[in-house]
């Protein structure tokens, strides 16, 4: 998002922390996301009053209260609709949607689908903890098949949604993924998504210490991260590992994990990532641990007509026609008669 007037205010991280007591559970991954958002905001250069955080309902959706910007804590699943109307009404604002895996993908799934394809210039962050936190621990649409929760005592029997893949299929123009605890990477993603013109969607793996602790530990824990996650970089080969000794190749449409130097694999065999290619983004979005490293970073970054701008263009065009905006002519219509 970059249409808001960037004024040269010198704000600091503290300027973005509201006076509201933060009420998440101690140790909740939400804290680190909040912290990065507060840190990044001053760097974006918007006046505080031009920034709006909008959310649905869920633990994650309490987020707006903790930002010293404008904030709207909506109803469950409808944050994108509120943001859509707001952005259309005032394209000058920097609009941020905060949602959860339940809020954004379960009850809010329809608005996710349509919000992304419309391509308004808004920023959507989905806190994926693979559980319903606020309602105390039911499975969510991103919970693993077979997961036992309060509402699935014998294990879920639903195939999970993969948010990044769904976003790419819904034709979002910017799609990324990060991890709550990976402060630097998260900050980078936040900045990139903010700068994108058009809708940007970021999934953040977020730990719910109470109802789904260590959900991402297997690959996102600090000490295994390098081996089990892969950082997507546009134009760079898909390499990972502590010494970047691993890589991904493509055999037809099938990705493979290879070790450079083994079986005759060389650097040149490694697939070069292209964030402008939706097919590649979609393919990468399918990769899951333990078969593959889990990709994080920018999956997709493309350009398309922006809804609120197209709408404004139609208004401008309509206004340029002769007789435009003549309320008396409109009220009278084409056929009148007079009674004296």
């Amino acid at each position, binding site marked *: 998002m970059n249409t808001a007037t960037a004024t040269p205010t010198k704000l600091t991280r503290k300027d973005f922390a*509201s006076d*509201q007591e933060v009420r998440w559970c101690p140790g909740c991954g939400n804290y680190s996301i909040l912290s990065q958002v507060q840190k990044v905001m001053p760097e974006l250069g918007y*006046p*505080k*009053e*031009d*920034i*709006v955080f*909008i959310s649905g*309902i869920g633990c994650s959706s309490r987020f*707006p*209260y903790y930002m*010293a*910007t*404008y*904030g*709207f*804590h*909506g*109803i469950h699943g*409808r944050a*994108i*609709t*509120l*943001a*859509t*109307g*707001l*952005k*259309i*009404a*005032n394209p*000058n*604002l920097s609009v941020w949607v905060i949602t959860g895996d339940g809020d954004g993908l379960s009850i809010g799934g*329809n*608005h996710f*689908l*349509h919000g992304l394809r419309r391509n308004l210039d808004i920023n959507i962050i989905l806190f994926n903890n693979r559980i319903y936190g606020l309602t105390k621990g039911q499975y969510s649409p991103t919970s693993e098949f077979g997961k036992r929760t309060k509402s699935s005592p014998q294990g879920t029997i639903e195939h999970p949604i993969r948010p990044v893949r769904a976003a790419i299929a819904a034709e979002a123009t910017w799609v990324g993924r990060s991890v709550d605890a990976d402060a630097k990477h998260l900050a980078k993603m936040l900045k990139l998504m903010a700068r994108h013109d058009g809708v940007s969607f970021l999934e953040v793996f977020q730990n719910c210490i109470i109802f789904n602790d260590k959900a991402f530990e297997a690959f996102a824990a600090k000490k295994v991260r390098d081996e089990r996650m892969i950082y997507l970089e546009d134009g760079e080969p898909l390499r990972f590992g502590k010494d970047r000794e691993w890589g991904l190749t493509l055999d037809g449409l099938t990705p493979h994990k290879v070790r450079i130097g083994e079986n005759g694999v060389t650097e040149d065999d490694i697939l070069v990532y292209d964030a402008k290619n939706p097919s590649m983004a979609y393919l990468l979005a399918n990769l899951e641990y333990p078969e593959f490293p889990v990709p994080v970073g920018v999956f997709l970054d493309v350009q398309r007509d922006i809804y609120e701008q197209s*709408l404004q263009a*139609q*208004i401008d*065009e*309509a*206004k340029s*026609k002769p007789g*435009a*905006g003549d*309320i*008396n002519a*409109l*009220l*009278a*219509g084409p*056929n*009148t*008669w*007079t*009674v*004296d």
Partner: protein
Amino acid sequence: MSEHKVAELDSVTIRFAGDSGDGMQLTGSRFTDTAALVGNDIATFPDYPAEIRAPAGSLAGVSGFQIQFSSHDIHTPGDRPDVLVAMNPAALKVNLKDLPEGGILVVNENSFTKGNLRLAHYESNPLEDGSLSGYRLIRVPMTDLTVKAVEETGVQRKLAERCKNFFALGVVFFLFERPLDTTIKWIEDKFGGKPEIAQANILALKAGFNFADTIEVFQTIYEVKKAKLPAGTYRSLNGNEAMALGVIAAGVKAGRPIFYGSYPITPASDILHELARHKDFGVKTFQAEDEIAAVGASIGASYGGALAVTGTSGPGVALKTEALGLAVMTELPLLIINVQRGGPSTGLPTKTEQADLFQAVLGRNGESPIPVLAAATPGDCFYVAIEGMRLAVKYMTPVLVLSDGYLANGAEPWRVPDLSELPEIEVKYAEPRDDGEEFKPYDRDPETLIRPWAIPGTRGLEHHIGGLEKDKLTGNVSYDPDNHEYMVKLRARKVAGMVRDIPDLEVSGPQEGELLILGWGSTAGAIISASERLRAQKIPVANAHLRYLNPFPANLGEVLGRYEKVLVPEMNLGQLRKLLQAEFLRPILGLNKVKGQPFKVEEIMDQARAILEQRTVAG
């Protein structure tokens, strides 16, 4: 034109009926426009099937358009037609029961084929079996004559046949001495791109007119003089157009852009279509993925400072219910339009009804007060939209406006107002601040209880709103028991207090006495006509119309108290009646019709008479 006896009539009701594919809505509209331009008062009632196009010739596919035009003030499209034009057997079958004996019946005899008769479930041909002897039957081989008339244009037979509705219109124009010129001009505009089609339609129109003249099918032709309407410039307008114009006018008066968020639904979609055409007024229309997104986006737009409107019909309001609670809690201005249709569920989507009043006033979870207004006539939709928006913006509240299918599609002559006649809509956003003091979004005017409209983008007013209960001052989330009760009562008081801004109820006829007929919404026309006619017959009934359903006007209880009996005719099972009883603890009589059709004047007159007679008997 040959010589015919000319009789003068006060008012006439015509019904055009035919197959969905026969263009009856168009024929009716053309007659309406001509009658209006000539200066008659008019009222129309289009009645079409739910299917886009049911099978040709079937009973389900019959489409009708009724118009009453008059030399005096009228308020309804007429109870029963004086003239029925039936384009095929099915149309005859469906409509004949409404034609009074001796009525004029014009039929297209070419369409009375075996196949069509069977489709219409006729055992024998009514044109032949004498069953129509009670009517002034005029058989016209319309299809043949039309095809012959347009031969010279060289259009294909199928297209030629389609012109027969203009032939029928020509016949009717002759019968009522109407000029053809506006219709010809309309055809030329409409079919500008296809001159041979335009030509064919014009030829058919003229042929119909001339046919009626030449072969002297009518012994008498009729004149309906100009009506004496208040001075002014007039146009013809239906309720949906009026609603859309009202919304635009509200934007102009407020000097703020309109946001209209909607998901198509019959009979409200035309409001969206109309508004989408007026982006030159800065109107932003948003066709949402569903009704929830429509209202959500509208709330978002309102939060952003736009004049937000969301329009739909009953099932759509049902879907918006949860979000309306959010609008109540966040106290943002929002206009919700419900063009009611037959229910419950999908019900009768193209028919009219008034059964969403309970839903409007009471249909939400929690204590969730929303002001409710209803439009009385097609043209009144214009004013109700403006008034709804005025109140929404002034009181920082969602306001629900009720129309219905009958108003939405019915037309009436409408005096075009000057912008200066319209009420002012004052938009006051909270002012930016640099004093560093904390902004209190729920601090409010102690009298009106209105909180400030503080829109994002305003320096120094950063704050949080949402659906959780709010502290009465800071707007922060509050679970405090006393604060909750305070806020629940405050929201109720704010809406109740709007009564100050609502005009007293006015009564026509005797200011006290035996019977008051009280209406709301689209029953207005029938009630006024019935009451006026009754009074003309020296039967002393009073009548009044409730435009504000929540809160009620301040004097309502007092007014009701002045009459021994109060009758509320409504197109539901007695919803206003129950609301009145709950409020004023007095019995209210109901006249309830739930047939997807508006009241006939006679139905109301009969009921009023029955009530008064009963009293005489009982007393």
